[in-house]
């Protein structure tokens, strides 16, 4: 089995695909930053930011609703923001008694809650789009050019390369466990939770040793191919005029969003 389920890249030849990876990374971060900077309840600005996102979706030629489909990934975390409804001082809207608890939602609290959800919903979509139109090694290359320490990018490059291999390894371990865990109908297979945990721990230990030994072999193989402690690449990044133009347009748009958000 090969786990290409991990690959988030969608092949294409759109304008967005062809843009320099650095430009895409920077614009993505700037967009998220802009969302974080917008005050609570800046509805016009939120709508404009959403338009920015839709336009980016259009330029990617992946369909205008492409990022929408996967955009609810951060939703479970919204649970913690629910408490903001009760914690921001403001005009009380109601008073709820739950057991001994008295919860008072305020208008400012609700505003904060909704704004947090919108900010995170918009931000996560841009991040989804970035990895959909940029091959991951290119993003790494861009990060290197943006002065992320090379040891980090090299570790990540290895992680990305061997993620698939070790995932296969885990799948084999899990399948082996499943194959040996027969259960009568209505009964749980295996023993107590502690026993289950020990099996899981042994699997983790096993995986650790296999990975460790594999890294030895990989290192030897790399040495024999001339590895000197640095990964080489044949794809130098080059910023061209369309890149500058796209970046300019994006930043003007973001500036507009910020100004409108503060009117």
């Amino acid at each position: 089995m090969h786990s290409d389920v991990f690959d988030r890249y969608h092949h294409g030849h759109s304008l967005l695909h062809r843009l320099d990876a650095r430009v895409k990374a920077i614009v993505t971060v700037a967009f998220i930053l802009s969302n974080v900077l917008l005050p609570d309840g800046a509805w016009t600005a939120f709508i404009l930011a959403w338009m920015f996102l839709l336009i980016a979706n259009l330029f990617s030629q992946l369909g205008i609703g492409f990022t929408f489909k996967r955009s609810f990934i951060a939703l479970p975390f919204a649970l913690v923001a629910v408490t903001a409804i009760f914690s921001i001082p403001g005009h009380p809207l109601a008073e709820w008694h739950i057991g001994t608890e008295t919860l008072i939602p305020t208008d400012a609290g609700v505003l904060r809650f909704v704004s947090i959800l919108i900010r995170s919903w918009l931000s996560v979509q841009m991040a989804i789009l970035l990895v959909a139109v940029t091959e991951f090694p290119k993003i790494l290359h861009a990060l290197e050019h943006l002065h992320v320490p090379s040891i980090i990018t090299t570790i990540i490059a290895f992680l990305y390369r061997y993620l698939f291999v070790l995932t296969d390894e885990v799948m084999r371990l899990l399948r082996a466990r499943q194959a040996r865990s027969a259960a009568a109908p209505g009964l749980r297979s295996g023993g107590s939770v502690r026993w289950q945990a020990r099996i899981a721990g042994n699997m983790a230990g096993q995986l650790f040793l296999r990975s460790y030994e594999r890294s030895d072999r990989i290192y030897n193989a790399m040495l024999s191919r001339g590895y000197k402690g640095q990964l080489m690449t044949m794809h130098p990044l080059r910023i061209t005029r369309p890149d500058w133009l796209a970046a300019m347009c994006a930043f003007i748009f973001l500036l507009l969003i910020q100004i409108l958000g503060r009117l």
Partner: protein
Amino acid sequence: MHYSPVAMHIPDGFLSLAISIICWTVTIILDGIAISRTNKSLGERQVPLMGIMAAFIFAAQMINFPVAGGTSGHLLGGALAAITLGPWAAMLVMTSVIAVQGLLFQDGGLIVMGANILNMGLITVIIGYGLYRATFGRSQGVKVWVAGVAAWLSVMAGALLTSLELWLSGTAKLSIIIPAMLGVHALIGLGEALITVAALSFVFRTRPDLLGEGSASVKGGRGWILAGVLVALTVVLLSPLASVNPDGLNRVAMNLGFFNTAHFASGLLAGYKIPFLGNTPVSKIAAGAIGLLVVLGLAFLAGRALQKKS
């Protein structure tokens, strides 16, 4: 099923810019030290090793086991990485893992990535290695059960930091988020502790050389003990204090009359307080300390049982 996301990856939009920047600063400083240390002490051989180990942590997070009620226990890996790779290398490995989870899978945001790395990758390593470092020269049994406690505490530390960051950003109510987050992660931490203990005993049995003399595991200095114990103590003392000692925001909340945490914390020690001490900070700290002792005891027993079996 790809891998089990942990309820600690903060998405973008949940932290204020100020908090995000502060967390990035701390993360960059710690990682900067880690980079200069690993550059000095490790050869080029270490880079592929750290890369594969990062992939290992990532893959190991997929190993789960059923606990009651449809939930499952699984691994975060900070403490395990720290013990097997040494502290500085583990910091870089965990940083890379969390960076990939955020970048590639949007499990955790980009602006808030500094906070996520700090919560799940750095603080876990400091506690994990610090407490483990204190056991040098002791028997294997002691090492393994201290590692278990360290693993549990590392998850709690991450949960506490996450809660504080959310609260300081005005995203969550302190008196709810702390008991809720710590309550959930006390259970998640048990899974972490059990797997870490079992995995370590497995490595001790099969490849003791990887954890013995001359290995990366023993490279950390004595200063780590201090750091680890300090962070662990902070977690034990601050968690109960944070939910009783209201300031600013919380005072307003209290004046409005909805300051009551008992409902959310009714767990082992209902509302984190000892009956005869009343609802005072002393009582909550005492409850926290008792809770810690109980967990230490449980981990000790579990460690011994595992040792005997093997």
